[in-house]
Structure formats: C-alpha cells, structure tokens
C-alpha cells in the first residue's frame, strides 16, 4: 500500500498506457478482434464473396455428424500423444547423455537440434522424398536388404500415412526438447545428486527421485508447448498428403483450411476453428494459471 502510494507520486498514472497504446491497438485489431469475430462467423453461412448470413448453430450441428471432423479430432489426439511422449523420452535421454564433459558433446547437440531451424515445408519435402514409394531411400533400403514386404506406400497407405507424418514432426522436435532439458539440468543441484549416490542410491534411482522431480517445471512447459504445437499442426500435412488418403491424415487445422479456402464454406470453417480454439483454451488457461502462480511467488 505504502509502496504503491509512493509510486503513484513518482509517475503520471497514464504513463504505462502511453507505452501500451500502439502495441495494444495493433494487437486488438489483428489478434483479439479476429478471434472474437471468428465466433460470430461460425454462426453464419459465408462463401467469402457475399456477406456472411446468420444461421445460428447450423454449422455445429453439421459438424457433429461429419465423419472427417471425427477423423481429424482423432488424428489430433494421436498426434498429441506421440508428439509429447517420444520427444520427451528421447530429448531427456539425450540431455542426460550430453550434460557432462565428454569430448564432442557440443557437436552432438548441434546435430540433434539442427532440424529445428528448418521450416516445416522444407522438412515435409525432404521427408516426402525419403518416403517416396518407388525411389525413396527407405524403401530402397528395405529392398536392398531383401525385406520387400516392408517397402510400403508410407504416405499413400492409410495405415502408415499419419504415423509417417508425425515421425517428421518428432524428428524436428527432439532436439528442441533436449535443449530445454539441458537448460533445466543446469539448475539441478549437483550436491543433492551426489548425496543420493553416496547414500547408496543407484544411478537410475537418483535420476528418478532426485533429478526428475527438479525438472518438473520444464516438463510442464514442454507438455503444454507440445499440445499447442500438435493442435496447430498444418504445414506438414499440407505439404505431404493434404489430408489424404481418404482424409486419413486430416487434422483439424487442415480440415478447417480445406473447408474454408478450397470449398469456400467459410462459416463452416470458422466453426471448426472455434472447436480447435476451445480445445486449446483448456491448455492455455492451465499454462496461464501456472505462470500467474509463479508470478505471485
């Protein structure tokens, strides 16, 4: 209270708003306003040319009987599960292996996180070539070692297509998770680890009970970022399969794009993005409360 009064005397109460005015106006026009406007659009029928026509919840009732919607929803769920688990396990393992003074550690790290700087479009293209059924390296390898039956249509077979795309996303993500854990390991107290080893804990036990709990804050961040990224997944699918074969690799973001910009059902597209937003909101709120809690500490 006292401090607040003192500060109030120190500066003009409008000062922060002078700094905020321009950024906030731009943010409201291009981010917050559009977000709210999409809610309205989802209640309209709109072809993108004429003006939107209000139709109530018609788009949503259509959505809940649309098979492609449920395929996309399921694919996003699958994406989330693998995009969290594999990079966390692999990234943490790499971080543990490389978080010590071994010759060449820096080079190893650099190689593992280098895919992260490539755009998803570039990743999608070079992997489409790897997956190419006739001339691609993967099938070429299987044929060369006599495992003909493993040479499948990675992106054209409904059984493998989604997994093949998620694998690319994981390839790009592992190095990122490794970097975050390496940063987190810097704050792990080495004395605690040493003490646990002296007390007779095995290496695994000290990892499990001493190191891992201290990495919890990083893990929370990684999980939230991974979920948000999974829900945003678009570029790879667009480049590699466009949702095919038979919509089997469709995710909500692509489904929304195709309905809006290829089929010109923009009201319908808006309703898909509202669903996507509501799912994201759960995790955004969780993250916000996590941050605000640390803020008040």
């Amino acid at each position, binding site marked *: 209270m006292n401090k607040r009064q003192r500060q109030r005397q120190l500066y003009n109460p409008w000062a922060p708003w002078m*700094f905020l005015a321009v950024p906030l106006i731009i943010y409201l*026009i291009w981010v917050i306003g559009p977000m709210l406007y999409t809610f309205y659009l989802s209640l309209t029928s709109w072809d993108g040319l004429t003006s939107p026509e209000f139709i109530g919840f018609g788009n949503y009732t259509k959505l809940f009987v649309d098979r492609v919607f449920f395929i996309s929803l399921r694919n996003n769920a699958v994406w989330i599960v693998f995009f969290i688990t594999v990079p966390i396990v692999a990234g943490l393992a790499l971080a543990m292996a490389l978080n010590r003074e071994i010759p060449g550690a820096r080079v190893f790290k650099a190689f593992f996180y280098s895919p992260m700087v*490539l*755009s*998803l479009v570039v990743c999608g293209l070079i992997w489409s*070539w790897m997956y190419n059924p006739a001339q691609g390296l993967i099938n070429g390898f299987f044929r060369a070692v006599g495992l003909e039956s493993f040479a499948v249509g990675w992106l054209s077979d409904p059984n493998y297509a989604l997994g093949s795309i998620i694998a690319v996303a994981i390839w790009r993500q592992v190095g990122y998770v490794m970097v975050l854990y390496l940063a987190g390991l810097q704050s792990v107290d080495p004395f605690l680890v040493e003490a646990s080893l002296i007390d007779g804990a095995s290496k695994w036990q000290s990892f499990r009970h001493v190191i891992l709990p201290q990495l919890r804050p990083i893990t929370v961040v990684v999980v939230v970022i991974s979920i948000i990224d999974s829900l945003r997944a678009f*570029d790879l699918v*667009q480049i590699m399969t466009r949702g095919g074969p038979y919509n089997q690799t469709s995710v909500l973001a692509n489904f929304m*794009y195709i309905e809006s910009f290829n089929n010109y059902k923009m009201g319908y597209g808006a309703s898909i993005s509202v669903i996507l937003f509501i799912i994201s909101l759960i995790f955004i709120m969780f993250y916000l409360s996590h941050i605000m809690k*640390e803020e008040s500490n």
Partner: protein
Amino acid sequence: MSTVTKKMSIGKILLYIVLVTGVILWMVPIAVAVLTSFRSNDQIIMNGAFSMPEEFSFKNYAAAWTRGDLKTFLPNSFIITMPSLVMTLFLSSLSAFALSKYKFRGQKLLLSIFVGGMMLPFQILLLPVFRISEALGIYDTYWALIAIHTAFQMGFCTFVLRNYMVTIPDSVSEAARIDGCKDFTIYSKIIMPLVLPAMAAIATLEFTWIFNDYIWALILLRSEDHMPITAGLARLQGQYVMDWTVITSGALIAAVPTIIVFMFLQKYFIRGLTMGSNK
C-alpha cells in the same frame, strides 16, 4: 580399481556408439536431400535414391532458382521478415516496459492476453485476418503479411521481454526518475541498453519463425509475385512433381538462411528458446 575404470570406459564407448549412430540416423534425410540435389533425375528414376551417384552438377539448383523462380521468392522472404522483425521487437519492447516497470489496474489481464495470444491456434484468426486485409486493401501485398507477423509475434516477444525486464531492479529506473528523467528516456536510455542481450536472442528466434511461416502466406497472398520461399517451395513441388532432384535443391536453398543464422547465432537462438520457457 582397474575393473572400475574398465567398466567406465566400456560404458563410455557404448555411449559414443549410440550417440554416433543416433546422429548419423538423424542426419540421413538431410544427407539424402543433399546427394539427390546434385544428381540427375534420369539416374534417380532408374536406380532410386539408394544408389551410387555417377555425376555431380549444379543444374538442379539452377533450375529451382530460375525456372522454379526461387530467385524471386527468397528475396521476398527477407522483404517480409525484416520489417516484421523490427516492428514486432520495437512494439513488444514498449508493451513489455509498461508491463514490467509500472503498477496499474488491469496489468495482469493484459499480460494474460499477450501470453494467451501467443498460444492461439492460427486457425481462429485466419478468416477474419483474411477479411481485414481485404478491407484495408492490403490483401495480396507484403503489408498483409508484415502486419499479421508483427501483431501475432508480439505475444511471445512481450512475454519474454517483460520477464527479462522484471529482473532489472526497480532502483535503477527509480534513481533515474528522481534525477528528473522522463518516462521515455528511462525506456530508451536506461532499460533498453540493458535488454539488448535478450533482444538479440529473441530476434534470432523470431527471424527463423517468421521466415519459416507458410500458412499466412497461403492465406494472404494470391499472386506469385509476393510469395515467400515457403509458399514458393510448395509451388515448386507442384511444378516438378516427378523431379525430386529439383525439389530437394529448392528445399536446400530455402534452408540456407536459417542454417546460416543457426551456425553463427546459435548461442542466441538457444538462449531465446530457453528464455521463452523459463517461466
């Protein structure tokens, strides 16, 4: 004693074998793309990627650059990225300053809006932004992309810069205030110089993010004159459906700027990533 050291060295050797194998496997897709880009398409069609190269030439790069028009798309990417980067960093530094060096009503709400905004799925913005850009007459121009990148990236930049500014003791700005410094002078002469390391880190990260954007280019551009290289690559993919030698060349050309950033500004890139997740 000797068994202990022996055991350790065997463990170390095993670790190295695993790591080296891992790195090799990790780099295979990139290596294959590089090899393919130098080969002739006839050879690839005859023997596949899993065959020994017989010739090396740059003619696929030339094809991607001229006939694939990457010579237009690559400069476009810079024309879009650089102004977006400068504007978003500048505006975010203003909002971060307000959110960290003052106390006022609604401060937490504003911070939440910026943090929440950075995590939005883009899809919730696509249609209205498409409409706004049409209404403003900037649809199918660089400006539409510069505007949305500037606005959207402010969420992340404000969040990270604000977290950084909070760590600068208030006594620094208070002392300046007592000396009679105006608010803007405190921002520009006292806080900003201290924030420069954080700015460098975020700038590096944001450069690759904006440069690598694909979806906004897809939504906000119709003609090819203004396309950034990501959209240009997708076009190349359609143009050279059966010719992977040209597509991989194009993909590698598109990767060069971000790889250069990564090689020379790696330290900042990594710092940016970890700063963004430290809360």
